[in-house]
């Protein structure tokens, strides 16, 4: 099973987490046009390679965080540091 490094709880089974899918920056709902908003909601890059994605530690500390994962090999890189929400620097 995939071990997901939660910044607070450390590596845990992926089944302890909720998968949030591709991380994209959210447009401001007040400013965004309908097309921009729906593009953000539905359209995906879906790469076969490195992907920045959202995770939620649903049966642990309930923190939302981001992770970089390779969608073909399952490798992880730049795990978030304790206390931070986004994937670590550099790539």
């Amino acid at each position, binding site marked *: *099973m995939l071990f997901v490094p939660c910044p607070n709880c450390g590596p845990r089974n992926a089944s302890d987490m909720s998968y949030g899918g591709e991380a994209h920056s959210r447009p401001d709902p007040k400013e965004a046009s*309908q097309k921009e908003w729906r593009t953000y909601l*539905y*359209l995906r890059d879906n790469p076969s390679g490195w992907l920045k994605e959202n995770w939620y530690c649903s049966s642990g500390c309930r923190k939302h965080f981001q992770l970089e994962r390779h*969608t073909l090999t399952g490798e992880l890189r730049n795990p978030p540091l304790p206390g931070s929400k986004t994937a670590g620097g550099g790539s």
Partner: protein
Amino acid sequence: MGKAKYSAAGLFIRGARKKTWPRVWREAEMKESYDVVIIGGGIHGLATAYYLAKNHGITNVAVVDKAYLGSGGSGRNTAIVRSNYLTPEGVAFYDRSLDLYNTMSIDLNINVMFSERGHMTLAHTDSALRTMNWRAEVNKLQDIDSSVIGPDEIKKLAPSLDVSSDSRYPILGALYHPPGGTIRHDAVVWGYARAADTLGVDLLQKTEVLDILCEGGEDEHGKGAGGKVTGVRTSRGNISAPIVVNCTAGWASQLSNMAGVRLPITTHPLQAAVTEPVKTFLPTVVVSGSLHVYVSQTDRGELVFGASVDPVATYDMRGTLEFTEELAGHVLELMPGISKMRLLRQWAGLCDMTPDYSPVMGPTQVDGYFVDVGWGTYGFKAGPVSGEQMALSIANNNFPELIAPFDLKRFTEGELVGEKGAAAVGH
């Protein structure tokens, strides 16, 4: 090239005379240009090619596949067909597919081993039973044979199921759909390939598409909205074509990005498994949405199990132990009597999931670039009708009535076709 007609008499005569069978399809030479290039040599791609040639007389067509025909989802699915969907759009579409499957053995002159054995979707909770009743009523309105039955009738249809009220997930009822059943998926692939080849379609295996060539589009490479397709670059050289059709699964997003068309798809693997063969005891297809499992028995006696897609998006098709454990637990919950059966093997296939569990079909914002993608976990049962409707769409460059609801624009216009209630685990 002459084709041998398949028949019982032919089998007997060839057997008696020790004659071998001829090649089923040609090893086609790749031409420099085609009228239509179809990417993906599975059921959808081959059916599209076949109906283009048969119904519309467009025979200058190539089907390209990076591996061999039927190597993707067409050879990995659990071969179940049904039409008891939830939305009127979905029901109309899948019912047409069942019609085509019904006469396929005669149309394509190949035995696809269609076994119309009935399809049962179990309900373990009140809310599931309510959805079943809803589905049954939607189905009846559209003239689909579908009804809700109680535990007694379930026991009669499939005596091996535990319908007692003291199990962890008691079986309260089921949506019973007699026209559902199973078909040999490889035969469908070979049937369409052979028929398309006979009509002059070139089947190009081991030919990977590296780029989709476009001009006039909005980005710096001429791709994206407003542009048009000029051909494809493959591992065996360029092919020029005014129409390119994406009939892939698993790689649909990557190919579509080559044309500058982003799709609402995430790719998840779905794992399946098969047991050792035993004497026939399970006469229908049994599905349980709550337990994430569906079971059918093949003519050889093996039990075929499938599940829902893995929760995390990945292109990795390795099997996992937790899948096997969970599957075994859930199957024994339904049929405690088979605890001594051994699993023979497990495998995975890639499923392109869309937000509304419905496919994406038809022309796109790039002129000449058509898609038939996002087929999630239900692509096999829709293969024939997708081919027929995509061929119609390509020949007329518009949306035929049956696939109009599945336009890519529905996502930016907010008109989703919500099939999750009937398609999430329902196979």
